[in-house]
């Protein structure tokens, strides 16, 4: 247990770290996750509570006895409350799409790397095709066909992002499948399901977790991007991307509407990416 704690501490607060320790970014993500989970307790008012008398009020304005700490938007809704509820959308879309695409990509990549032959050819060529189309374009087209909405955004992101995981899982499986311990296990009569689950998956999960972390940041941006274009979650549901989109119309006379969601997005994506970088450095023996 102490050993584990020590390893974790060294991973997050390496002694020779340049710049800001990665623990700071872990803390930022942790705070955002907590805010998302505890949204109903933290938000001063509901995210959709309108106050048409208090439209476009700057941060700190008091209206009808409550204060708009971060100002209000074009319908007089409290920006802080919407940001807090927006964290739920951003994080849950990113998390669920990463889990879905990660599982799909890992299974397909491992199948291609282990079974080889025509299975490999079909799966990896499909991966190539997916990777050759700009991801956001693919997502936009799919949403346009399926229709926007919370669930659809998750599905679209999962369906368009799995090839990244498949690539990594495929390459890693190829390497691990040739390890002598896989051969030994086969010689002991282990089935391919056991070999994949017990010997290969645990040995490739580290590399996949790096991809997943980096993808998480990207998924937050994709959701924001789709919502910004009106293809993501639909009004009145609060999403950082959608708030940014609305804020753009008022940026000359109400800067706060677009600024605060932007800062939140920036902090979340930056933190997640830096954690991913550090994780990949840590898991790569060459850079340890």
């Amino acid at each position, binding site marked *: 247990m102490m050993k584990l704690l020590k390893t974790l501490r060294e991973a997050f607060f390496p002694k020779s770290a340049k710049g800001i320790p990665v623990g700071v970014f872990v803390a930022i993500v942790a705070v955002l996750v907590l805010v998302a989970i505890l949204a109903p307790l933290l938000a001063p008012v509901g995210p959709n509570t309108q106050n048409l008398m208090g439209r476009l009020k700057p941060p700190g304005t008091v209206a009808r006895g409550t204060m708009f700490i971060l100002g209000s938007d074009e319908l007089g809704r409290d920006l802080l409350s919407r940001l807090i509820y927006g964290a739920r959308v951003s994080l849950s879309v990113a998390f669920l799409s990463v889990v879905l695409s990660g599982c799909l990509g890992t299974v397909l990549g491992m199948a291609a790397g282990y079974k080889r032959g025509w299975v490999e050819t079909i799966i990896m060529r499909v991966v190539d095709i997916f990777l050759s189309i700009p991801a956001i374009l693919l997502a936009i087209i799919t949403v346009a066909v399926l229709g926007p909405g919370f669930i659809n955004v998750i599905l679209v992101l999962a369906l368009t992002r799995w090839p990244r995981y498949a690539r990594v899982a495929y390459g890693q499986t190829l390497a691990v499948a040739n390890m002598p*311990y896989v*051969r*030994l296990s086969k010689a002991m009569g282990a089935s391919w399901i056991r070999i994949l689950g017990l010997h290969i998956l645990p040995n490739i999960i580290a590399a996949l977790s790096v991809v997943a972390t980096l993808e998480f940041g990207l998924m937050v941006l994709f959701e924001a991007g789709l919502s910004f274009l009106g293809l993501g979650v639909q009004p009145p549901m609060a999403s950082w991307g959608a708030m940014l989109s609305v804020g753009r119309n008022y940026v000359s006379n109400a800067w706060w509407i677009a600024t605060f969601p932007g800062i939140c997005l920036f902090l979340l994506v930056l933190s997640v990416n830096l954690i991913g970088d550090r994780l990949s450095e840590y898991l790569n023996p060459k850079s340890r």
Partner: protein
Amino acid sequence: MIDGFSNTTLSISNLKVAVGPHSVVDGVDIDIRKGEIVALVGESGSGKSLTALSAMGLLSGRVGQSGGEIKLNGQTINPQDEVEMGRLRGTRLSMIFQEPVASLNPLLSVGEQVAESLVVHGRATKAQAMERAVQMLADVGIPEPEKRAKQFAWELSGGMCQRVMIASALIAEPDLLIADEPTTALDVTVQAQILDLMRRLRDKTGTSILIITHDMGVVASIADRVCVMYGGRVVEQAEVHQLFKAPKHPYTKLLLTTIPKLTDAPKQDLYSIKGMVPDIADFPEGCRFRTRCPLADKQCVKTPPLQPRKTFDDGLVACWHSELTETLQ
């Protein structure tokens, strides 16, 4: 089915293995009797590992069995049948390999891996299997087996890992253990210990062992019988003392000559067989050793059959000029 009562554990007859259009194992016959230790000797590329892997049904990629029959205790088995082989591997046939440390999964404890074949084949519950694994670790001479069972491969030495592999291969009491260069990666003292362990386990359990090696020292210290392979064929087969005393195939003779002796003059160049094993794409017609053989003549263009060695044992040799082999220096 008289054969069904015979005491032959594994019988390989006329085995052929092909890589694409080229045959790398060309009609190999090997019989391993119950409780016998047979050594399969030859240079790299002579097809000895492929022979063993095809008996296990572990050939993969472009390499495939193209002919021959394999019998286990008199029953024909089909190495290409994954379901059948899945049942046999670990329980009736097991195999260990030459890289002991890399052959153990770094993320699983040693005990779990020793117990693997019992768990895989549903012979025992996980707890029972772990108990058996600890016992097995003790049997292969690992001190403090309870503690070791919970450790990982990278916490053990190479010799220790090889013992672990042997334990995992033998836990389900297979009829045959195939050991593919089990001591190559180990230093000589550990090598001697491992060979001694394998012999003791054979004496105790009656498991037959097929040991693949290119080290004549290993052959001399463990084998009952030897098969010498060259270019994908068995060229000579004999009881171990007979083979060392009176090699009948020129290749065997030259192979034995390559072993440095204490009586050799100091600073004398070490003897080596001229030439290289030909590429699988261009083995010569007839006897495959003839391009390097000092005795080769026109007759060798025809493939020599495996014939009795004309000595007192039941050995076999495949050479037209076996009676001249003694004259080689």
